[in-house]
């Protein structure tokens, strides 16, 4: 056996992962070669030293918990409490997602309930009926002219990543309608739900006079 080959087997010898035959061949070489024998002793000492490092700086369970919590909060955008302030009433639309992930021609969602509201500040609540738990769906809304989410009036398009639980899911959108809007024209809100492989777009029309909502 060559010295280079023998030295390439030192780790396996130390960790006792050599086959019996190979181990015997290596032992024979180590018995005959002073250089390799000395190298092996040195290497074994080195590996023992390294093994002594293993248990350094162990985290406690509470430190693990804190670390995870910090890591998660570092990536979650803070919520704006002011976002919820100021809206006075609500309209409610209902959307069925039954066909979202299974049918190419989904059934038209139906309107469940409608509640009247003030004209300027209002809240649109979408009731979305999902056939199953859906995680990390991208939810995007596009708002018409003169309508904005309260606190986000510089944006006409917003999106979130949402989980939908099986059954009804409520999404409340506090919106503000700018003064001067012709209330006889229905507002049209576009909503897009994308689960990564399938996308569905809804057109949500709200009549500002009757506060009736329809979806298509």
């Amino acid at each position, binding site marked *: 056996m060559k010295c280079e080959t023998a030295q390439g087997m030192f780790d396996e010898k130390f960790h006792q992962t050599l086959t019996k035959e190979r181990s015997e061949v290596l032992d024979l070489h180590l018995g005959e070669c002073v250089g390799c024998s000395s190298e092996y002793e040195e290497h074994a000492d080195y590996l023992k030293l*390294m093994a002594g490092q293993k248990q350094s*700086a162990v985290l406690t369970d509470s*430190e693990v918990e804190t*670390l995870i919590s910090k*890591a*998660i909060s570092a990536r979650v955008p803070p919520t704006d409490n002011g976002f919820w302030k100021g809206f006075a009433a609500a309209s409610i639309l209902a959307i069925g997602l039954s066909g979202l992930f299974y049918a190419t021609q989904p059934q038209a969602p139906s309107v469940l309930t409608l509640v009247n509201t003030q004209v300027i500040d209002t809240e649109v609540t979408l009731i979305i009926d999902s056939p199953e738990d859906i995680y990390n769906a991208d939810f995007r809304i596009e708002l018409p002219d003169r309508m904005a989410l309260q606190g986000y009036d510089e944006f006409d398009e917003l999106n*979130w990543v949402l*989980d939908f639980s099986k059954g009804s899911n409520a999404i*409340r959108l506090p919106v503000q309608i700018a003064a001067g809007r012709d209330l006889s024209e229905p507002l049209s809100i576009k909503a897009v739900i994308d689960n990564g492989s399938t996308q569905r777009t809804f057109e949500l029309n709200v009549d500002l006079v009757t506060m009736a909502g329809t979806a298509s």
Partner: protein
Amino acid sequence: MTILNFRKKASVQARFTEWITPFVKSLHAVAYQYTGSKENAEDLVQDVIADIYAKNRWQDIEHPKAWLMRCLYNRFIDICRKNKYQNMIDDIDDSHKEIVGNESAETSVVVDQVHNAIQQLPPHQRALVSLCDINGYSLSELSRTLDKPLGTLKSDLHRGRQKLKQTLKLSGNDATMRLIVGGAEK
């Protein structure tokens, strides 16, 4: 922003926390060998966890421990390239060590010396020595996990080991270390 959004955060956070928790101690132990201090190791692990959570790719991982070790390694090397963990020898933290077996003053000195010597290695050699010689990963495992050629890993590990052996012999306490290592055999 929405009621559902708050519910979603709680749900995903809970699932992510449950998924990551079993691996955090192992990640931290390896990160400690990489960075040289408990606090830097916590920062590194926190950084990796935050990144994984934000990118939301963790749910479909087949071999999570190997994948996490790869994320940790890549993150560590990235950070080293930006010099964040350069010259950290002065920051090496002695206050959190727990030594396996019979603890003695000599053992503690040796553990410190080895720890300091490891920190003097270039980052990729430090990482390899830590993964192979301290944490028991084989080179073939690491080749798959880190997606690096076996030959490259082998030569990097060899160089790292040679430097370490040289540093430890030149430290002036070689006799003490030999004594302790020899004593552990009994």
